[in-house]
């Protein structure tokens, strides 16, 4: 055992309330003594349950152990205690990246970078995520290069199931969950690019904004948002409390027809979501 670990262990033994458990657990983790690191940080956490640094470190130990689910929880706790905790943002960003949720990964890495603008690790991770995002957007045919294949297959299946037989199921209908994750459908830009995931990521924000505006202006729940532009019209609805449905059609299609199509797609989505539970 190296000298610094010995010294810190003695310090901690002499004063169990000491915060030296943090550098000690980190030193143990770096030497791959994960079980010992885990014991030290858990003892520290039992004394300091509100210390974001300790939750972050525990998250790293769990992550090294391959227990991503629990690591996610620990980093989540760290962020609740300290919403700007760069280490926890980094950790969660990494987990999202591994899961192929690139937009969320980027969001957390950006938050980490805001606190650590000079951290090369964060900058490199962001570059990788951005690269993956670009590949994702420009090559509609290929499966996501980073996301697990399972996610892609599932999305394709859903499209078949949810919007089967509906007009525009592959290029103008999109069902998204509250985190901006695409559940079904597809979307092509007027130039023919696959923009489904990119738009899906934005839709969660629009939905939150619509909910907030309706709530604060005391207008009750929002039902639809319609947008006209020169290239086409968009119709947004909320088939269930935590999903958003987007229907896009060329501007020549009357808004009334858009609404009717949205209605049909919404019932199809509801039926499908109910069948899952």
């Amino acid at each position, binding site marked *: 055992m190296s000298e610094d670990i010995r010294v810190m262990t003695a310090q901690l033994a002499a004063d169990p309330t000491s915060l030296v458990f943090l550098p000690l657990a980190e030193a143990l983790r770096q030497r791959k003594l994960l079980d010992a690191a885990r014991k030290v940080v858990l003892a520290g956490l039992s004394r300091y349950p509100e210390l974001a640094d300790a939750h972050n470190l525990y998250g790293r130990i769990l992550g090294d152990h391959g227990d991503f689910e629990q690591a996610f929880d620990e980093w989540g706790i760290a962020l609740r205690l300290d919403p700007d905790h760069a280490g926890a943002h980094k950790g969660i960003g990494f987990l999202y990246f591994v899961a192929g949720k690139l937009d969320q990964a980027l969001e957390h890495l950006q938050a980490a970078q805001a606190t650590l603008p000079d951290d090369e690790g964060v900058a490199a991770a962001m570059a990788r995520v951005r690269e993956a995002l670009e590949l994702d957007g420009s090559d509609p045919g290929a499966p996501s290069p980073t996301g697990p294949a399972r996610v892609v297959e599932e999305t394709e299946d859903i499209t078949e199931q949810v919007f089967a037989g509906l007009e525009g199921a592959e290029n103008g209908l999109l069902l998204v969950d509250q985190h901006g994750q695409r559940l079904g459908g597809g*979307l092509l*830009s*007027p*130039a023919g*690019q696959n*923009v489904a995931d*990119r*738009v899906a*990521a*934005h*839709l969660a*924000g*629009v939905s939150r*904004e*619509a909910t*907030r*505006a*309706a709530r*604060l*202006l*005391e*207008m*009750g*729940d*929002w*039902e*639809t*948002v*319609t*947008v*006209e*532009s*020169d*290239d*086409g019209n*968009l119709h947004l609805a909320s088939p269930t409390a935590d999903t958003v449905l987007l229907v*896009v059609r060329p501007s020549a299609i009357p808004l009334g027809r858009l609404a009717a199509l949205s209605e049909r797609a919404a019932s199809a989505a509801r039926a499908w979501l109910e069948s899952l539970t």
Partner: protein
Amino acid sequence: MTALYLESLEGLTRLRGVAGAMVVSADDGLVVAESLMEGIPGDAVAALAASLMRRMGTTVSAAGFSRPSFMHLQAARGALLVVPAGPDILLIAIGDRHINLGLARIEMLQAAEQLG
């Protein structure tokens, strides 16, 4: 300029179901001119509608479409209508469930053209 704004706004508030109309700066969501029925929180309408329009604009642009020319939020007990009038200005109307949407849309598009 303000007189021109007010004239357009008052025209809008005469429409059925419209409880208020305002000219708002698009970027910061602050009120430039307003004509509101009593009890309508102008500052909140301006900030929230401008923010929703901005987010919607980003989404529309991510989809590869050009800038929105009209937005309508329908809620259980009310509606918000937004039309850009030039690059930095929005025309916003707030109304109840029974707003005459077709007419309001046309009037707003016309007013926006005049203001822009």
